C-alpha cells in the first residue's frame, strides 16, 4: 500500500477520562495511531479497552460531561480537529469521516424509512434535487448488495434483517464518499455468514474508491482477513502495533501472544483451550506499572512499578513490553558473541 507522508488520520497521545461520582475511568490513556490513505487499520482489543471511545473522540461524539479530553490531539489531513466547534465538525461528520456502529437495529431511527435516512445523509452535505437523490440512494443500496433497492427505500428498519440493516448503515456512511470510514465492530451482532459478506463488501468498496478504513474489533479472525496495519489495545493503551504479518507471526507482547494462543485453531484438538488468566482491569483502578502485569507470565519486578514505553523493532513494529525487547536483545548479543 502506498502511504502518503501525511497519514489521513493521526491520533496523537490521546487521553480521554470519564468522571464518575467518586472515581475517574481512564478509558483512553495515551493512545496514538495513524491511518494512511487507502489503508485498512484494525484496532483490536477486548471489551472495555477504550477502542470505541478513541474512535468516538475523532468525530467529537463523546459527551463532555462526564467525559473529558484530557490531552492529546487528533489530526485529519494534517489539521487538528479535536477542539473544533460543532458547526465545523458537522462538515466533517458523514462527509469526510463516516462511522458505522455496532448495533444496526438501535442505530437506525425506527420511525423513518431507510430511504429517508439515507437521503438525509446526502442532503445534509450536498445540494441535490429530488430525482438525483433517489437515484443515488438506489445506487448506494445496490452497491451494498441489497436486492430490489427501489422497493427497500420505503421500508422501515424493523422490516429488514440484521445483515440488511448493517448494509444500510454502510450505505449511509458511504453516501458522501468519505475519505475515512470508522467501523465499530459492525459485524459483532450478526451471524458468521453475514459477517463474511459484510467484510467482502467493505473490501470491494475500498478497492474501488481507495477509501481508508479504521476497523474496530475484538475478533482476530477478522483482523487477519482485512488488516494492513494492526494496533492491539489493552486497558486504554496501545500494547503492540505493526502490519498484519508482524503481529500474527512475530508478536512481541505477552497480551498479543495470549490472544493469538487463545484462538481455537491454535490448540490441539481435545486439549484444553488456552486462556489468559484473570480479567481486564477496571479503568478506574488500574494496576501500577504495566497494566497487563497481573496477568502476565513473563512479568518482572520492574513491570509492577514502571509504566513501560514502546519498544521499536523496526519496519513499523512496536511493542510495549521492555521485557521481551531486552530478552531479544540479549539473544541477539549472545548470537553475535557466539559467532
Amino acid at each position, binding site marked *: 500500500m502506498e502511504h502518503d507522508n501525511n497519514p489521513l488520520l493521526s491520533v496523537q497521545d490521546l487521553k480521554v477520562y*470519564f468522571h*464518575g*461520582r467518586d*472515581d475517574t475511568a481512564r478509558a483512553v490513556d495515551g493512545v496514538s495511531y495513524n491511518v494512511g490513505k487507502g489503508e485498512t487499520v484494525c484496532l483490536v482489543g477486548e471489551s472495555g479497552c477504550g477502542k470505541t471511545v478513541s474512535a468516538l473522540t475523532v468525530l467529537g461524539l463523546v*459527551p463532555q*460531561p*462526564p467525559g473529558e479530553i484530557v490531552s492529546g490531539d487528533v489530526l485529519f489531513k494534517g489539521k487538528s480537529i479535536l477542539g473544533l466547534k460543532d458547526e465545523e465538525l458537522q462538515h466533517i461528520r458523514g462527509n469526510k469521516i463516516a462511522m458505522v456502529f455496532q448495533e444496526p437495529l438501535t442505530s437506525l431511527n425506527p420511525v423513518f424509512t431507510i430511504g429517508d435516512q439515507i437521503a438525509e445523509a446526502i442532503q445534509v452535505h450536498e445540494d441535490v434535487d429530488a430525482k438525483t437523490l433517489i437515484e443515488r440512494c438506489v445506487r448506494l443500496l445496490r452497491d451494498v448488495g441489497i436486492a430490489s433497492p427501489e422497493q427497500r427505500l420505503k421500508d422501515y428498519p424493523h422490516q429488514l434483517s440484521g445483515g440488511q440493516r448493517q448494509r444500510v448503515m454502510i450505505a449511509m456512511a458511504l453516501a458522501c464518499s468519505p475519505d475515512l470510514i470508522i467501523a465499530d465492530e459492525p459485524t459483532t451482532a450478526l451471524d458468521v455468514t453475514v459477517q463474511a459478506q459484510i467484510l467482502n463488501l467493505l473490501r470491494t468498496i475500498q478497492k474501488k474508491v481507495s477509501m481508508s478504513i479504521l476497523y474496530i474489533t475484538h475478533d482476530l479472525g477478522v483482523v487477519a482477513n482485512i488488516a494492513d496495519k494492526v494496533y492491539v489495545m489493552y486497558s486504554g493503551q496501545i500494547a503492540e502495533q505493526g502490519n498484519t504479518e508482524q503481529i500474527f507471526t512475530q508478536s512481541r507482547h505477552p497480551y498479543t501472544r495470549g490472544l493469538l494462543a487463545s484462538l481455537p485453531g491454535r490448540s490441539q484438538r481435545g486439549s484444553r483451550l488456552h486462556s489468559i*488468566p*484473570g*480479567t481486564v*482491569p*477496571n479503568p*478506574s*483502578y*488500574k*494496576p501500577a506499572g504495566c497494566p497487563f*502485569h*497481573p*496477568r*502476565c*507470565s*513473563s*512479568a*518482572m*519486578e520492574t513491570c*509492577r512499578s514502571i509504566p513501560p514505553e514502546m519498544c521499536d523493532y523496526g519496519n513499523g513494529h512496536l511493542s510495549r513490553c521492555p521485557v521481551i525487547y531486552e530478552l531479544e536483545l540479549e539473544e541477539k548479543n549472545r548470537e553475535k558473541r557466539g559467532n
Partner: protein
Amino acid sequence: MIPTENMEHPEAPKRTRLEELWLLFKENRLAILGLVIFALFFTTAVVGLILTSGQDPILDPAIIRLQEKLLPPLAKPSLETMSQNEAPKLGIYLFGTDDLGRDVFARMLQGAWVSLTVGFVAVGISVLVGIFMGGIAGFFGQRHITYDQVLITAIMFAGVVLLGLGKDMAGIAALFVGHASIAFLFISKRTFWKKNSIPKWLKTLHRNAIALDTIIMRLVDIMLCFPSFFLILTVVALLPASMYNIMIVIGLTSWMGTTRFVRAEFLSLREQDFVAAAKALGVGNFRIIFRHMMPNAIAPVLVSATIGIATAILTEAGLSFLGFGVPPPHATWGNILSDGKRFIFDAPWLTFIPGISILIVVLCFNLFGEGLKDAMNPKLREK
C-alpha cells in the same frame, strides 16, 4: 522470570445495591430535602397524636373559647376570661385561633396524624391489592379458568345468593350440588378415571374458558372507567362518615396503577434467563416470585406508592373541603382549611397555615418519590 504472586487487580470498592442506591439518591438534593421534611412531618404527627389525644390532652384542640375567636398567630390569650384548664399550655396561641376560639396549633397537630394515616393506610391497601393482582396476572396469567370451574363457581355463588334471599331450600340444594361436584371430580380423577378414561363430556367442559390475565385486566379496565374522585366522593357520601371508610375507599380505588406496573415487570422478568435458570434448578414457583422477581418489581411500586401517599393526602383534603372528610370535631388539615375559607379576608392564617402545610408535606413526598425514581432508573444515570 519471576511469576507474579499477585494476580489480583486493585479492586473497585464493593458496594451492595442498597448502598449504590443510597449514594445516587443522596446526590439529588431536592430528594434529600423531601426525605428530611418527611422525617419532620412524621415526628410531628406522632408527637401531635400523643399531645392531643385522650381525655385530658396536653394540647387540646377541642376546647371552644368563643370569646377568643379569630385571633392571629402568636396572640396572647386573655387569661382573665377563661378557666385554668382552658388556657393554652404554651402561653400563646402559636397559630392563632379559629372561629370557635380553638387553638389552631393544637388542631394542626391533631390533623397531622390524620393526614399521615390516611396517606399511609390508603396507599398500603392499594399497594397490597395491586401487588397481589399484578403478580397473579403477570406470573400465572396464562393459566386459564376452565368451563367446569366456572360452572361450579356459578352454582356455589347462586347458592349463597339464594340463601341470602331467604330461599333456604334452593340455596342449600345449590351449595350441596356445588360441593358434591367438586368432591366427585377430585376423587374420581385420582381413582377410576385415570387420564385416558375421562369421559368425553367432562373433557369438553374442562376446556379453557378465560385466562386469569384477561380477567384481571378487564377488572382493571372496569375500575378505570369510573372517574376516581367522583367514585370516592360517591362512596364517601353514601357511607357513614369515618376516617376508616375514607382510607379504605381511597385504597380500593387506586390499586389499578400498581397492578399494571407489577404485571408489566413480572411479564418481562418472567421471560428473563434467570427465572428459567431458577426453574431449571428446581426452585418452586413461590420462591421464584418472592426472592427473585419481587425485588426487581418493587422499584416502580415504591415510586408510585410515595406519589400515591401525596395524592391520598390531597384527596383527603379535597374531601374535607367539600364536607365529606373525617367528621368534626376531629381536626384534619383539610377541614381547618375548609372552615377557614369563610374568613379568608379577615383571618387569612386559617387558610394559609393548613394550605402551606399540605403543600410542604405533599411536596416532600413528591420530591422523595421522584428522587427514588431517578435513582433507580439506570437509563438516566451518568455512564
